[in-house]
């Protein structure tokens, strides 16, 4: 089919023309949507279908059980704490990688992605031995009276390992595009370093920082492999929500597992909506 050249200036006509000239929309879109529905949406909906297998008071019994509540609370606060630590240390790492020179910089830059590529079980086993009572890090810490293994602090360390690359990789391109001349100009007009950070750097990097935090937080919230070896999975103390779901699955308590999963999905969804609201507000304020 030939494109109609005369109508090419009108956007709508261009759209129609594209569709006709290129071909393959039906096939590619049809396949993507069907496969997405079959493999992602249908199985995910089973969380709610399976939960509905319980009577209402049965659902309530799971939701309100002390063990589940304390695991969900632990999951959320450790994930939030690890998100903050990841954001601060990731921002520092990104800043140093973009602005300063130091030996082996390219190697350091490449290795920042290690947690993306390293299987979580390997990370978990390694961190738990390293932080254990006779490990390279755990031994000096134990002498100082700090325990990482079987403690919330250990959960946070494992979550930071998983979360840091998200912050660095979100922030790096933004810092790269930032023009140092703006800061120079501000300083030549008499702004101090603190003012430059508050008035120039923070507004420019704010949205990326929130995105980085969100990614690190939501990844940490669901994390299983790297955390499960670190914690003793002691109920009420170091048992996180994914561990409870796994335990219920292993016991064949599918409806209970689905209920906890639905709780996590719902809570995470609400939090992500809130964070994207924060980001929109930030963007409007800087514009």
């Amino acid at each position, binding site marked *: 089919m030939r494109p109609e050249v005369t109508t090419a200036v009108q956007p709508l006509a261009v759209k129609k023309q*594209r*569709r006709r000239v*290129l071909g*393959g929309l039906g*096939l*590619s879109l049809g*396949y*993507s949507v069907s496969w*997405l529905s079959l*493999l*992602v949406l249908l199985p995910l909906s089973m*969380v709610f*279908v*399976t939960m509905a297998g319980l009577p209402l008071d049965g659902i309530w019994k799971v939701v309100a059980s002390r063990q589940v509540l304390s695991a969900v609370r632990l999951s959320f606060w450790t994930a939030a704490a690890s998100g903050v630590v990841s954001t601060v240390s990731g921002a*520092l*790492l990104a*800043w*140093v990688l*973009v*602005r*300063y020179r130091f030996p082996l910089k*390219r190697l*350091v830059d490449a*290795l*920042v*992605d*290690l*947690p993306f*590529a*390293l*299987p*979580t*079980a*390997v990370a978990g*086993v*390694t961190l738990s031995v*390293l932080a254990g009572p006779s490990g*390279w*890090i755990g031994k000096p810490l134990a002498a100082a009276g700090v325990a990482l293994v079987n403690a919330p602090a250990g959960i946070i*360390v494992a979550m*930071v*390992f998983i979360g840091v690359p998200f912050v660095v990789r979100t922030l790096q391109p933004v*810092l*790269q595009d930032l023009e140092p001349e703006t800061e120079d100009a501000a300083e030549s007009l008499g702004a101090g*370093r603190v003012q430059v950070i508050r008035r120039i750097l923070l507004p420019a990097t704010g949205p990326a920082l929130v995105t980085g935090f969100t990614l690190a937080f939501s*990844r940490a919230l*669901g994390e*299983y*492999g790297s955390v499960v*070896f670190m914690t003793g999975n002691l109920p009420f103390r170091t048992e996180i929500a*994914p561990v409870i*779901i*796994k335990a219920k*699955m292993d016991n064949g308590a599918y409806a209970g*597992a689905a209920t906890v*999963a639905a709780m*996590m*999905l719902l809570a*995470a969804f609400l939090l*992500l909506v809130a964070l994207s609201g924060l980001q929109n507000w930030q963007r409007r304020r800087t514009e």
Partner: protein
Amino acid sequence: MRGAVNERRTEPPWVRRALTTVALAFFVLLLAMPLIFVVWSSLARGAAAWAAAVSRPDTASAIRQTLTVVAWVVPLNTLFGVLAAYAITKFQFRGKAVLTALIDLPFAISPVIAGSIFVFLLGKFTPLGGWLESHGIKVIFSTPGMVLATTFVTFPFVARELIPTMQAQGIEDELAARSLGASGWQSFWRVTVPNIRWSLLFGVVLCAARAMGEFGAVSVVSAHVSGETNTLPLQVEALYSGLDVTSAFAVSSLLVLMALLTLAVKAGVEWRYRRQEARERA
């Protein structure tokens, strides 16, 4: 990292040095040390013990099982990724933003939940799973279930790598091919695919790496039978909880090697793109 160093020299030297030191100390403690520690621990009892741990029958079976899962997952997700990225970047249609967001959905879901949903859908006591079972097809606690759960977890990788590249390329090349008389398939295979080959390679490598290393999701749907349905990460867990720590680290070192190869491919692909950009600018 792309582009030149964006350097600025107004911070006093001691501030620069202090910040760099703190950042690097953090890097060494959290990222470099675990890497060195795995290699160190896997060789703690010598190279012979490492070789014995890596070649014992249950490890060999775990390698086979892992490769079987990867051999299913990667083509499935590559086909989906290419077609979804093609539809999203080359056409306008209603609901495009929703489709793009839904592709990323599996990233936001805990691997444990990702494994559980396939048990909910296809487990022995569900209608669908019961029907399959009565026809002699076992999905959960068997290889098909592990393939499905891993496909879910690695679902976005290929599409995610391709979408920005294809967005930047637009549709001019394809339009030119069509106007010169190429058929739709010809334009796809001779123009679209060669244009995206490096991003595609990286997407496939990332997907394969995550598929090999997936633990949480697979752990829910696997029967955990050593020598049968254990993948490499499950084998690491089995050895570690059996207190054979050195063997656990030996098997881990294989996975570390795979992770480092992935990072090397990433560095290679980025280097290619930088060179291409430089050439286009010149």
